[in-house]
C-alpha cells in the first residue's frame, strides 16, 4: 500500500520587495520559501492513514523544483514520510501548472500508488489546477477541496466530504485509486522539530529528471506551457482619507469631496 503526496515549496513575500528586471516575477532576494500550507494537511492525512493501518503503508512525497526545495522535502521526511522524490532539470523552468500535473502523473505511473493526495492549491500561485490535471492525465477519479476523509489502507472506496460555498458540505463516495486535493483544517498537522529535520538530512532524496520519466524537452518547461506570465505588478490602490474635526467641519469637508467628485 502506497500513498503519493504531491507537495510544493511556495514563496512568500518579504516586506518591501522588488520586482525582477523583466517584470515577470518578484526578485528572488525578496522571497522566503516554505512548504505550501495545504501540503502540511495532505501529508498529515497520509500519515494518519499510515499510522492507523495494520498493514504497511508507504508514504512518498514528490515535488518538482530546483535544489532549494529539498528543505521542504526534508520537512516532510521529518514528519514521517518514508521517501521523497524531487524531479528537476533546467529545461523545466517555466512549466505551468498543467505541465506540472503531467510530470507528477509520470511519477505516479512509475510509483503506482494506491492513492494520491495534493493540496487544494498553492499559496503563491493559487491555480488550484495541479492536482486535477494530474488526475485527468492519469484518468483517475478525483475530488477537490476535501475537508473530511474516511479511508483506510487498501479500501476500494473512500468516503469524503467536500466543502462547498455558503457553509454547505457534500458527501461523496469515490472509487480508489483516486486523486484528492486536501483542504486546510481537515486535521491538525504535526510539528517537524528542527532535530527531526536535521536527522532527515541523512535520508537520501531521490532525484529524477524528465527523461528518467520518459518525458522529452517538448513535454516540459516553456515549450509545453499553454499559459505564461506576461508581467507582475502592484495594482494602484484606492485612496482613503479620515476626515477630522467637529461634526460641522466634517460635513463641510464631505460636501467638498462630493462636489469635487462630481466635477463641480
Amino acid at each position, binding site marked *: 500500500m502506497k500513498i503519493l503526496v504531491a507537495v510544493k515549496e511556495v514563496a512568500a513575500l518579504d*516586506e518591501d520587495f522588488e520586482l525582477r528586471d523583466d517584470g515577470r516575477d518578484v526578485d528572488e532576494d525578496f522571497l522566503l520559501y516554505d512548504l505550501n500550507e495545504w501540503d502540511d494537511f495532505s501529508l498529515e492525512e497520509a500519515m494518519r492513514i499510515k499510522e492507523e493501518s495494520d498493514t504497511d503503508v508507504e508514504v512518498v512525497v514528490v515535488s518538482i523544483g530546483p535544489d532549494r526545495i529539498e528543505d521542504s522535502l526534508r520537512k516532510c521526511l521529518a514528519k514521517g514520510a518514508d521517501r521523497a522524490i524531487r524531479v528537476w532539470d533546467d529545461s523545466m523552468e517555466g512549466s505551468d501548472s498543467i505541465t506540472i500535473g503531467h510530470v507528477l502523473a509520470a511519477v505516479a505511473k512509475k510509483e503506482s500508488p494506491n492513492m494520491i493526495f495534493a493540496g487544494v492549491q498553492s499559496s503563491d500561485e493559487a491555480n488550484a489546477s495541479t492536482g486535477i490535471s494530474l488526475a485527468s492525465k492519469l484518468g483517475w477519479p478525483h475530488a477537490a477541496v476535501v475537508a473530511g476523509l474516511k479511508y483506510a489502507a487498501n479500501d476500494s472506496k473512500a468516503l469524503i466530504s467536500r466543502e462547498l460555498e455558503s457553509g454547505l458540505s457534500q458527501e461523496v463516495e469515490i472509487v480508489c485509486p483516486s486523486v484528492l486535493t486536501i483542504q486546510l483544517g481537515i486535521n491538525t498537522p504535526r510539528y517537524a522539530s528542527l532535530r527531526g529535520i536535521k536527522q532527515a538530512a541523512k535520508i537520501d532524496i531521490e532525484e529524477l529528471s524528465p527523461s528518467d520519466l520518459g518525458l522529452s524537452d517538448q513535454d516540459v518547461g516553456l515549450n509545453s506551457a499553454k499559459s505564461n506570465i506576461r508581467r507582475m505588478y502592484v495594482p494602484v490602490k484606492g485612496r482613503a482619507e479620515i476626515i477630522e474635526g467637529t461634526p460641522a467641519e466634517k460635513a463641510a469637508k464631505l460636501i467638498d469631496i462630493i462636489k469635487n467628485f462630481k466635477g463641480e
Partner: protein
Amino acid sequence: MNEITEPTRILFEGFQLQTIYLFYAFGYAAIAVFIYGCYVQIRKYRRGQPDPSWNNFVTRFGSMVVTMLTHRTIKRRDSAAGKAHALIFFGFILLFIGTATITLEYDIIEPLFGVTFWKGSFYLWFSLILDVAGLAFIAGLLYMMYRRKWMHLPKLDYKRVDREPGDPDYDRSEYRREDWAFLWTLIIISVTGFVLEATRLVWLSETASVWDVRMWSPVGAFLAMIMKGIGFTPEAAGVFRTGLWWFHGMLALAFIALIPYTKVKHIFTASASLMFRDEMAGRRLPMVPEDQVEAGYKKIDDLTWKSLLHLDACTKCGRCQDACPANAVGAPLSPRDVILSLREFANKALTKKELPEEAELDIHGKDVGQVFMETLWSCRTCLACVEICPVAVEHVPIIVQMRRQLVEQGDMDPILQKTLGTIHKSGNSFGESKRKRAKWAQDLPFEIKDARKEPVDVLWFVGDYASFDPRNQVVTRSFAKLLNQAGVNFGLLFEAEMNSGNDVRRVGEEGLYEFLATSNIGTLQSCDFKSIVTTDPHSFNTIRNEYPDFGGEFEIQHYTTLVKELFEQGKLKLNKQNNKRVTFHDPCHLGRYNKGYDAPREVIKLLGYDLVEMDRNRDNSFCCGAGGGRIWIPDPVGIEKPSANRMREAGAIEGLEVFIVSCPKDLTMFEDALKTSGFEGQFVVRELIELINDCVEYDDSIIETQETAEHVAV
C-alpha cells in the same frame, strides 16, 4: 577498685548471654535489610543515564557539609521550620554519634585492645550532652507535629492541582500517613529512651556510682523522681526495664532497617542531592548528545542518575509550590507533584529486578502516574522552585527535558507550533522581515554603527521584543540615545541578529535553539568588539550561560550594570532627580538566573526615587508569566494571570506611582496587566531606561528629539 566506682553504664547489664546474642542477631538482620534497600536504590539510580557530576568531589562535599551544618537552605522563607529541623537534625546527629561512640568502645576498641574510655567525667559529659540532644530532638519533632496538625499550611496539603478529586492519585494521603508514622516513630524511640534511662536509675538507685551522678542525665533523673514518687521499687523497675529495653531496641532497629524504604532515606538522598547540586541548573540547560536519537525525557530511564537522585531527595516541604507562579494562578502545575510523580514512577518501574517493557516506562500521558502535558506546558521556567528548594532538586531542567519530548511529538499549543515555525523561517518571533530588525533606529538623530562592518567597543544585542514591539521600541531608542550621550562606541548586528534562543530552548525546541545559537555565535565571532550589552535579560542569560557550550565565549552585560558604570565614570550626568514612590520588579532572567539584583536598585536610588520593595522581591521575585515560551502561548481565560497577581501585590503599596521593570517582556506583560487589573490611573509601568532618560542631561541636539512614552500611542 577505681573501675568499680567510676561512673559508667554497663551494657546489657543483667542480660543472659543468649539474649545478647539474640539482640545482635536482630541488629545484623536490620543492617542486612538496610543494605539490601540501599542496593535496590543504587541499582535504580544506575539505571539512569550518565551524568558528569562526580567532578570536584572535595569542593562539592565541602559545600554540602556547610549547607547542612548551617541549615542555610532549610531556614529560608520558613525559619521556624528551619529551626525545628535543626533541633531534630543536630539532636539526631549527636544521638547517632553517641551510639557510635558506645559501639566503638564496646565492639571494637575494648575487644581488640582492652582499653575503655566511656567512663568517668567523659561518661558524665556524654550523658548530659545526649540528654540535651534528646530534648532538642523531641522539641523539634513536637513542633513538626504541631505544624502538621494545627497550622493548616497549604504547602503541606498534598492534594494535587493536576488531578481531579476522585482520581486514584489525587490526594496522596499515603504521604500524610507516612509523615505521621515517621514523627511518631521518632518520638516514641526518643521518649522510651528517656524512660529507659529513668528506669535504670530507679533500678540501680542503691548503687552509688549510678544514683549519685544522676543529675548528669537530668531528664532521666527527673523521670526517675516521678517514678519513685508513684511507687516504683527497684525490683519493679528492673522488670519494667527488660520489657521497655526490648521495645526501644526493636523499634530503633526497625527504624534503621526501614531507612531506604521510607521518607527517612532523605537523610542520605537529600545530602547527596545537595552534593551533586548544579549551580547552573536551569540557567544552562543540558545539551542533547550528538549520538542521541530522541531528545529529552520520554521514558523514566531517560533521566540521568542525578535526576533520579533529585527525585528521591524531595521532602515534600512544598516551598517550590508556594513560589510557583503557575501554581499561584491555579494552573495544573505544582513542581513538587511533578517530582513526586516521577519518583513514584521510578520506584515502581526501576526497583524491580528486571526492567519492565518499554511501553511501561513512558512518563508522558494521561494514566495514573504519568505527567500530563498541560502540567509541563504550565511551567514558565522562572526558576523560583529551583531557587528555594532546600535540597537542591532541579525541577526546571527536568521539566524542559520532558518538554523536549513533547516538542518532538508535536504535543503543544498550535499557536506555539506556529511561532516556532515563524522563528525558524524569519529568525524572530514576530514573523517580521529580517530587514526590519533595526527599523527602530531609523529616525534617530545619529547613525548607529554596523558592527559587522567596523570595529566597536560595545556590541548591542537588541533581542526580538526590544527590536519589533512598538512600545519597547520607544525604550530601545532611549537606550540608544543614552549610549550615544555617554560616548560609548557601540554598534548593532542589524538584520544578522536572530532571536537569541533563550525561550526557544526553554520551550524544549532544542534543534531550533542550536540553529539560532550557532547562527548568532557565527555572526558575533565575525565581528570585532570588546563586550556585548543587552536590554533583554533573556538574551543576556543564554549568551552568558549557554552560548559557551556552543563555542561562543563572550563578555556580556545587562544594561543596568553598564548604565551604573557610566554614571560612576561621569559619562552620564543627571540634570534632575525624582522622588516619586516606586517599586522594582526583578526580572527572572536578570535576578534569579543571574543574580543581578543590585545594579538596577542602585540606579533607581541614584535617580532619587523612593524605592519600596514588594513582599516578593529579589530571589523571591514573582514571574510575569512570560518565561519558558509562555509569552507565545495564550493564558487560559477566566483565571488570573501571574502578571495580574503581581499588579495586585504592587497595588497594595500605598502611594505607589511607578512600577519599574527592566525587561522588554515585563513591559509588555505588565502594561497589559495594569489595564485589566484595575490599577490604571493609580500607578504606571515603566522601563528603568525611560526613567533614566527622564533625568539624564543631554546635549542640545538630542533634547530636541526627546521622546517619551507619553508621546506614543500605546
